[in-house]
């Protein structure tokens, strides 16, 4: 049985290598993939596309030799050497350029991951196993069509699961299906604070005295069909609280009212009803994500 498995490995490895070579040589974004890969820190930006294509040529030659007759063990040894090279490259990329793309089997940007290492290790194991083969894969497959196909399918499935580049083709659809069946995100209810803040920011009252506000939202509460939202501000040298009354269940920026209340005395210094102000001459600006609080890339 081990002879059968060993004899089939060249077909599998050859197919993987030819696929990888196709991406490196024929894909229209091959040069971009090379520039995103970890080859850049290794050989320099200028030479990366050349080296990338050279690796593709090597993969194509070894892959073709493996798939086409006759059978010879040095072919499998060459494939093993390539797999060792891949492992070394991945190790280097993981250490030196963890943000770069693997550039392995697909043009999609895929960082080096444990699955990438496992796949290169599996290719190495298959290559070593293939050196034990006594004959070409074609007569072996013809002699054991069922067992041979099952082995090839199982191995191909294992390689696919170890390829992050191919997740889009099978894993994401499966997850989408599960989401459709189980509805894990259903159940949200109520009016988020952000909806009220967006509404008050669209109001004439906010446009009028937004420049007086010094803080983000300090507190908020609900009163009947209104949400009250407070900011700290400064008005004529006094510390004030700007309290906005925003319709809770309706989208009606023109109904937003605001009062400026002196923090020291509790006296109302100013009251503005958006309806009393002139409508803006131009279109209202749309809310833009990320313009609220200071936003920065993930900490740490």
């Amino acid at each position: 049985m081990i002879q059968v498995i060993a004899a089939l490995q060249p077909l599998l490895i050859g197919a993987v290598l030819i696929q990888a070579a196709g991406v490196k040589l024929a894909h229209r974004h091959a040069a971009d993939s090379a520039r995103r890969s970890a080859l850049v820190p290794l050989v320099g930006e200028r030479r990366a596309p050349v080296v990338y294509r050279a690796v593709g040529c090597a993969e194509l030659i070894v892959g073709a030799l493996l798939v086409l007759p006759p059978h010879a063990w040095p072919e499998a040894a060459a494939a093993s050497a390539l797999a060792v090279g891949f492992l070394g490259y991945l190790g280097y990329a993981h250490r030196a350029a963890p943000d770069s793309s693997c550039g392995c089997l697909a043009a999609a940007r895929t960082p080096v991951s444990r699955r990438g290492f496992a796949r290169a290790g599996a290719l190495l194991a298959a290559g070593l196993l293939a050196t034990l083969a006594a004959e070409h894969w074609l007569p072996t497959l013809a002699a054991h069509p069922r067992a041979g196909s099952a082995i090839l399918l199982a191995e191909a499935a294992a390689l696919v699961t170890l390829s992050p580049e191919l997740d889009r083709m099978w894993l994401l659809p499966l997850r989408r299906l599960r989401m459709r069946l189980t509805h894990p995100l259903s159940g949200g209810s109520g009016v988020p604070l952000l909806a009220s803040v967006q509404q008050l920011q669209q109001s004439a009252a906010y446009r009028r005295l937004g420049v007086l506000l010094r803080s983000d939202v300090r507190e908020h509460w609900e009163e009947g069909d209104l949400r009250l939202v407070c900011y700290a501000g400064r008005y004529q040298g006094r510390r004030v609280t700007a309290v906005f009354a925003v319709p809770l269940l309706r989208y009606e920026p023109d109904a937003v009212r605001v009062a400026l209340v002196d923090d020291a005395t509790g006296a109302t210094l100013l009251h503005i009803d958006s309806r009393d102000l002139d409508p803006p001459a131009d279109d209202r600006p749309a809310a833009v994500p990320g313009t609220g609080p200071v936003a920065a890339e993930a900490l740490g």
Partner: protein
Amino acid sequence: MDTTMNRRRLLTTAALGGAGIVGATALGSIAPEDAFAAPSLTVEPGAVDPHFVEGRVTSITGTMLLVTSSDSSLHSIRITDGTSIWKLRPTTFDRIAVGDGLYARGVRLPDSTLAAESVWVNIVNVRAHLAAVGRNVLHLEHRGQRIIGHIVPGTTAAVYNNTPAVADLSLLRIGRHVQVIGAWHPDTNEIDIATVYAAA
């Protein structure tokens, strides 16, 4: 508690226009260009903004936060009654813990402490792929790293196609781009999600 209720009642009455207004003229000019003039910028382009601090909280003494910035400089931040504090939602000073990251904006006092007007604790802004979804959890793929985003019922909001925020997250699609504003759990790859922006 009573103080809070009384204060809220006062503010509510004021916002609804039920309170008498102290004559604005008694306080000085009411010309819009004076009362509503934007404060002038005092920072030179390219210079460090003295009214802004980022860093991790290293100690808390009274209402003073000692913060170490990412450039290793130390800053004292004073929290006042007027400071807004955000930690996933508008919250209170006692929710700030040692180890939290923060961004603070305020006024630099002569003794070089920052009197904070706004503090955002552990806030992160992540553009990522939605890789997988669990019960009240979004698994985000961010530059090859996995981020676990917890949905907080009652707080987490979704903004689809720049329309007003809603609480319904069920329109999110696996495999699509999302932008997430959230509160980081310090020293982990987990965040609580405040807002997720997506196309629907």
